[in-house]
């Protein structure tokens, strides 16, 4: 019997000595395989006297169970060590940067963003977005808006013109978004509530003017809307747009050919060191022009100014973008310097809405 115990001790030593799972498998085969040492012992059972067979067989089986158990235990240990070693081997330098993510690199221009903000606010008040062509007729840009024949705005130094056609008429680049008022009134029946953002053009280029800029027009036409409503809309808009709880406004009588009465609107602000804060302070900043639509304009689209009335306003999109987001120079808006666009632009998923906030 001692040969069994000697063999067992020898196998267990080998199991303990196995450095990896492959070596352990070799030990297992050498012991328990068909040609293994323990299997060989079992094969000798037949040659033993019958009275010894039972006890010898039991002893071999016990040894085999212990060897199997030791193999299993050792295997777990070796597997864990191997995994440990693998994980260590697989460790990488996580300070290396990944490739630039397109969602991180992309930008939306402030003009697009601010148009979205304006649209979100006015859509909530029931306004649609109307559009018109950039290349306009004298009729839509001036005559239908009650500009007198000799108005200086009709001159070449203010307005971009195209060459005259054979019939003497000449097209122009719209100088304001107001032609959209007239086109809208011609195309649809009151009640009308629209805003019309878009590109506008004037022959002007200096530190604070560019030959192209963006305006947004607003128009309400129905049977009852009056100046009090206009005041409410503009005050609500300014609060929502500048994302402040209160704004002070000052409406001053002014003059535009296509509104009567006409007003300019100042908004209360605080100026300090080049920065302008809307909704604070005691200074005033002129921000837009507005008025009740002139009876001649209403008449020109075939409506009766004694029956229909309303108001319109216009303001510079680039300008209110600069006021809200602090760009110092209008000219940079159209220069496409990617450093400027990266800095002042908005991320692709910065989606302005009233429920999620205009800006984040």
């Amino acid at each position, binding site marked *: 019997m001692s040969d069994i115990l000697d063999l067992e001790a020898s196998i267990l030593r080998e199991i303990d000595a196995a450095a990896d799972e492959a070596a352990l498998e070799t030990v297992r085969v050498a012991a328990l395989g068909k040609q293994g040492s323990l299997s060989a012992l079992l094969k000798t059972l037949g040659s033993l006297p019958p009275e010894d067979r039972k006890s010898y067989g039991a002893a071999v089986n016990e040894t085999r169970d212990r060897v199997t158990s030791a193999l299993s235990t050792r295997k777990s240990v070796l597997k864990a060590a191997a995994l440990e070693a693998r994980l260590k081997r697989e460790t990488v330098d996580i300070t290396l940067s990944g490739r630039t993510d397109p969602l991180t690199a*992309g930008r939306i221009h402030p003009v697009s963003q601010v148009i979205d903000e304006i649209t979100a606010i006015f859509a909530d008040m029931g306004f649609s977005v109307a559009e018109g062509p950039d290349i306009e007729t004298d009729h839509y840009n001036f005559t239908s808006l009650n500009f007198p024949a000799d108005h*200086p705005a009709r001159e070449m130094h203010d307005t971009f013109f195209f060459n005259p056609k054979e019939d003497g008429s000449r097209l122009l680049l719209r100088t304001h978004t107001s032609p959209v008022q007239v086109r809208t009134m011609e195309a649809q029946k009151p009640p009308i509530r629209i805003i019309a953002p878009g590109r506008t053009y004037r022959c002007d280029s200096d530190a604070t003017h560019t030959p192209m800029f963006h305006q947004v027009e607003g128009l309400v036409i129905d049977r009852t809307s009056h100046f009090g409503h206009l005041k409410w809309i503009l005050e609500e808009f300014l609060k929502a747009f500048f994302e402040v709880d209160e704004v002070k406004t000052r409406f001053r009588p002014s003059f535009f050919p296509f509104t009567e*009465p006409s007003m300019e609107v100042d908004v209360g602000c605080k100026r300090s060191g080049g920065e302008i804060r809307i909704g604070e302070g005691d200074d005033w900043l002129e921000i837009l022009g507005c008025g009740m639509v002139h009876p001649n304009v209403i008449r020109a689209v075939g409506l009766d100014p004694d029956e229909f009335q309303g108001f319109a306003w216009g303001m510079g999109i680039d300008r209110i973008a600069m006021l809200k987001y602090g760009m110092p120079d209008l000219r940079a808006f159209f220069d496409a310097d990617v450093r400027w666009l990266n800095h002042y632009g908005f991320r692709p998923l910065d989606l302005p809405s009233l429920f999620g906030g205009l800006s984040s």
Partner: protein
Amino acid sequence: MKFTLSWLKDHLDTEASLDDVVEALTMVGLEVESVSDPMAPLKPFRIARIVTADKHPNADKLKLLAVDAGDGNLVQVVCGAPNARAGLKGVFALPGVTIPVNGTVLEVGTIRGVESRGMMCSERELLLSDEHNGIIELPEDAPLGMSFADYRGGSDPVIDISITPNRPDCLGVRGVARDLAARGLGRLKADPLKPAVAKFASPTAIELRFDGDTSPCPVFAGRVVKGVKNGPSPQWLQDRLKAIGLRPINALVDITNYITYDRGRPLHVYDADKVTGPIHARLGKSGESLAALDGKTYAIDETMCVIADDSGVLGLGGVMGGETSGSSENTVNVLIESAYFDPNRTARTGRKLGLNSDARYRFERGIDPAFVVAGLELATQMVIDLCGGEASELVVAGKEPLRNLVIDFPLHEVKRLSGLTLSEGAITTTLEALGFGVQGLGETREVSVPSWRPDVHGKADLVEEVVRIAGLDQVKPTPLPRLASVGAKVLTPLQIRTRRAKRALATRGLVEAVTWSFVSEAQATAFGGGAAAVRLANPISADMSDMRPSLIPGLAAAVQRNVDRGLSNIAIFEVGQVFAGDRPQDQTIVATAVRQGTATIDGSGRHWSGNAKAVSVHDAKADAVALLEALGFDTSKAQITRNAPAWFHPGRSGTIQLGPQTVLGHFGELHPAVLEALKVDGPLVAMEITLDRIPVGKAKASKAKPALNLSAFMPVSRDFAFVVDDGVEAGKIVKAALGADKKLIADARVFDVYRGEHVEPGKKSLAIEVTLSPADKTLTDEDIETVSKAIVAAVAKATGAVLRG
């Protein structure tokens, strides 16, 4: 328009403070640009007397003064003025005072070793004139120690207001005073007309010489004043003119300038002895010219209204007089002109000649036609008061063009348009205070418009008058009623696309640019534009002359500007209008993306995990396809063809279309010759999609999506490698494979393209993976074999490809 507070008070009886005046001006629509007090800097200067004037011990030209500034102490001052002498009374500055001429603060100084503790001032040092030959000498009765500002009449703030073009009546101080009086700031003083006593018949006849239509100058009044003595006008008049930035010239000219600003009534004075024959208004003749008072000579044509005598043109009506017939210090007999010139013609003449003047500014906005004679009487009175002389009879040619407009004004118009509730009395009182006549008693009044208000035409104008005087701040903000409880969709399909296109392209790592709507003629021509119809007649510069036919040239130029600034690998886009012609329907919205260098969607430049490759046509195509898909368009329905426009590389570009008539857009590398012409460093790829052309899906009754049928059976995939001629397009093979069994084949995609030693020259190997998706049973080997054969046969038939052995 500038005036001083004391000048305003000539017309307005008021106790209002300067702040109240400024506030009221702004609130009635006369926006205050600035308020300044020219006397304020003179306040710290004192009237002082030189007690002794001795020679400076160390300098021949300097003197050592002892100055008494009124407090009894003698101050030692070093002074270089030749007229500095004992007993002289002048203007003295102590250390700490700011000297107006250079803004420096006076300090105690040491001049040639002697301490100087103040300064006796010249007129130039106080910015009173250019006089600097000596110090100011004041009369002996000037009170010692008094502030020089107070001595000069004290503070008189200058108010500068901007006048909107509809208010010519406020281009005179009296008009401003009338508005303020209506606002309740005081009482408009009476202004009785005092006609001069005519001593003789006018020696100069006045005529209108027009062929029937006298509208260029419907009325022309004048008179001669004999025996005047012209010279500098009195100090008060000079001070007022200086305060508003005018240079005093002589009394006669100063009077006309004064009345221009006081009443908005331009006048002209001629030296009557230099006028020959009747003075008359007529249209100019081409070839005539005028040497005007500004020292320049202007060519006259037959559209201009001129004033002339027998010798020729004396002046441009309503714009400027001539040099030769003007008044001078030697003028003894003066002819005063007061006329009315047509606003539009005056404006056109001034614009044509580039000639601005205070007269033109007022005539082109419309002066009060009823004040022609009264203005002449006023001028006559001032001439006689300041220069003496005797007046002739007043001569008037023509007739004042009065409108005599009466408006039927329902009083409720005020509430209808403004929302402001005002009493009948408040409305009529305001109108009357502004000079309107109000007749009748009922709801609708007859309102007559004063002659000085050419801007008032109808009811809405009257509402404006009433509301602006009452104060726009009186109108309460009124919520605009909602049209629906939940807002409806307000954007059109194109507007939705435009917004979504911007976001979609930005998520692809592109940066949105906004570039000019105009490009150079060369750029326009290179991109299919350049038509004369969309070329500006007056571009701001030659490189901004044509409306853009494509967004690519503007974006390519923007890329190059960035490259020139040392930046690289630029990826930018724009969604904006392009112009195929000058009609509204020629304007479409295009989304265009350009990528330069290695600016691929996965980043650019070198990277430890592998450097980015140069941008290729496939990057541009991916942008185009992604954009279309983001806009809800199924790109599998589009054709990709090779006929991209000439600005693309012919072999590395494509067109996305639904058919030859419906081209959605293009993508590709820019043509090397175009890049060279644009002076842009490549590689540069671009895609452009016309958003207007993408078909709009039909509105469906239900928003529900079609039912999803998922197969219960495993899909199977098989690979096929074909050898084909190199020119065969992959798309053809994929299409043929997909068509082999439309029910069973769910997908086919190219996973390898190989040219090289294992394939004979002129051929390529192209491998595709086909996915079979059975709907009703598990595929057997026989099924797979059958469909595989069909695929090989279909591809062979379509392209001549053979299965690679």
